[in-house]
């Protein structure tokens, strides 16, 4: 295979392979895919399996399909899973709004406005990206406790309106810088205020990055376990992650069907975001190195 280049290859065809080679790679990839998906598929199938079959079969195909686990699980503990879902939804949506608003304001200032100290504050902002949350955790907790905010959603939501997820600021600054300066300079000449430039020019042109930030905000908040664990102690305020964990602790070895049904349900929003916004998510990671 080596050494013979007969014709210029189209750039997308990286390393053309022989037929057996390509079959082998596909076989390996399909095998790998099944291995990756198997645990997830097994969980979904366990949620619709008759209870006595859950641990006796390694197959992902149930012998019969039975949705009663969902009904049983949904009732939950003293509080139903409907409540947990609602709480998670409220927190996640408010987080999205807070992150997109506050981070885009700050990013606009850093990327487009000239003011004394801009570079200084920008460097500080980058520095905050490196600080692990553990350092601020305890004083923040004491602060929110003294404000009477524990057992409310405020400690989880208010910081987002103060642009505490600096990562998104950085992401937006990068994007804003790519938008031609002539646009806002012309608008400035015409007497446009900074606010109008931000609102009428920058935001409409930045929908891709705003959407990326919104989607990741939603998914990370939906999945977050640590924040709710610390701030929410009353079961009525629990998020889906806390509810699920409590369900695990209290029903261990009794209602596996219900547990897997609720686990599956808890993944559904993330899964659908993934399905619909796959390209945005993957581009976001590829270009910025976002993770989790």
């Amino acid at each position, binding site marked *: 295979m*080596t*050494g013979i280049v007969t014709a210029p*290859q189209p*750039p*997308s065809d*990286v*390393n053309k392979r022989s037929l057996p080679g390509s079959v082998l790679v*596909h076989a*390996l*990839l399909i095998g790998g*895919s099944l291995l*990756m998906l198997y*645990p997830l598929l*097994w969980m979904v199938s366990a949620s619709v399996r008759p209870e006595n079959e859950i*641990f006796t079969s*390694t197959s992902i195909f149930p012998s019969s399909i039975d949705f009663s686990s969902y009904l049983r699980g949904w009732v939950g503990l003293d509080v139903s899973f409907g409540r947990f879902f609602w709480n998670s939804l409220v927190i996640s949506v408010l987080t999205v709004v807070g992150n997109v608003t*506050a981070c885009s*304001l*700050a990013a*606009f*200032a850093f990327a487009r*406005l000239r003011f004394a100290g801009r570079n200084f*504050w920008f460097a500080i*902002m980058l520095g905050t990206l490196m*600080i*692990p949350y*553990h*350092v*601020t955790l305890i004083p*923040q907790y*004491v*602060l929110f*406790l003294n404000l009477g905010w524990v057992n409310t959603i405020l400690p989880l939501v208010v*910081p987002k309106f*103060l*642009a505490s997820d600096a990562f998104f*600021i950085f992401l937006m600054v990068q994007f804003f810088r790519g938008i031609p300066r002539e646009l806002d300079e012309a608008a400035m000449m015409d007497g446009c205020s900074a606010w109008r430039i*931000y609102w009428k020019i920058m935001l409409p042109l930045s929908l891709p990055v705003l959407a990326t930030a919104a989607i990741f905000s939603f998914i990370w908040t*939906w*999945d977050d*376990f*640590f924040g709710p664990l610390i701030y929410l102690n009353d079961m009525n305020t629990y998020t889906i*992650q806390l509810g*699920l*964990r409590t369900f695990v602790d209290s029903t261990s070895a009794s209602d*596996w069907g219900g*547990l897997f049904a609720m*686990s599956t349900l*808890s*993944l559904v929003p*993330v*899964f659908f975001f*993934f399905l619909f916004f*796959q390209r945005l*998510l993957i581009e976001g*990671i*590829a270009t910025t*190195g976002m*993770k*989790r």
Partner: protein
Amino acid sequence: MNNAMRTMSAEAATVERYRGAVADSRFKRLWNANAPGYLFLLPWLLGFFGLTLGPALMSLYLSFTDFDMLRSPGWVGAANYVRIATADPKFASAMSVTLTYVMLAVPFKLAFALMVALALNRGIQGLPIYRAIFYLPSLLGASVAIAVLWRQLFAGDGLVNAALAQFGIQGPSWISHPNYSIYTLVALSVWQFGSPMIIFLAGLRQIPQDMYEAASLDGASKFRQFYKITLPLLTPVIFFNAVVQTIDAFKAFTPAFIISGGTGGPINSTLFYTLYLYQEAFGNFRMGYASALAWILVIIIAIFTAFSFLSSRYWVHYDD
């Protein structure tokens, strides 16, 4: 004479008025030039002082106290740090568990990510589907449901052992055996190699195709091409992934918490550093001690990062 004087005083007055106007307009200019910037920055500035800088300084102070949330903090000097360094077996255990986890999970994760990225980078049919499948666990992985699922997969009568039994192997109870429990958590982390994989894929795209053509004209084997072209040109991406994944692994919390039921057991074998910190702060209300633990973590992460950047000089190739 009189006339001249009048002219002079009139001039002085004009100058005075002019100066005032200059000062006035200078202030106005300063205001006009800077106010919009600071207004836009206001939410972030409030957050920075109120939620980051203030709490960070407070936490540094608390780390030298015996704060327990009930009484006001009492200064104990370096006692917390001394105890961490000399008289806290749980700290030593948590640190060793965390280091083991970092040292195992990160290399395996990166190796899988790179292998799959290389396989996918061959202009293969169905790339978007494969990429999506391999990425999915990374996206779902942070949630409690996955940790619960993992706990079940690796239980004594779980799926992994059922699968092993078909080969006649009697597996141990992975999650409740102190010798094995950490490896189930490593496996969970490695399973989520999707995001470094995507970054590797993006990096592989950047390598100019004509380098391979030139190399294969010169008769270089595939292996040699990988070793001499792909790997060196990919080192910046490998470096980036390694740093991000390492920092992230130090902060791991949810899986260990769920799988061990919050205890870090059996016998502290899954007592991750952050889990220990959580137990001290919110279980035992030793807030001062936990603050010291938090600062130690920061220092360790900083040392790791600094070391990575220093060592990168010797193995990361930036083309310039």
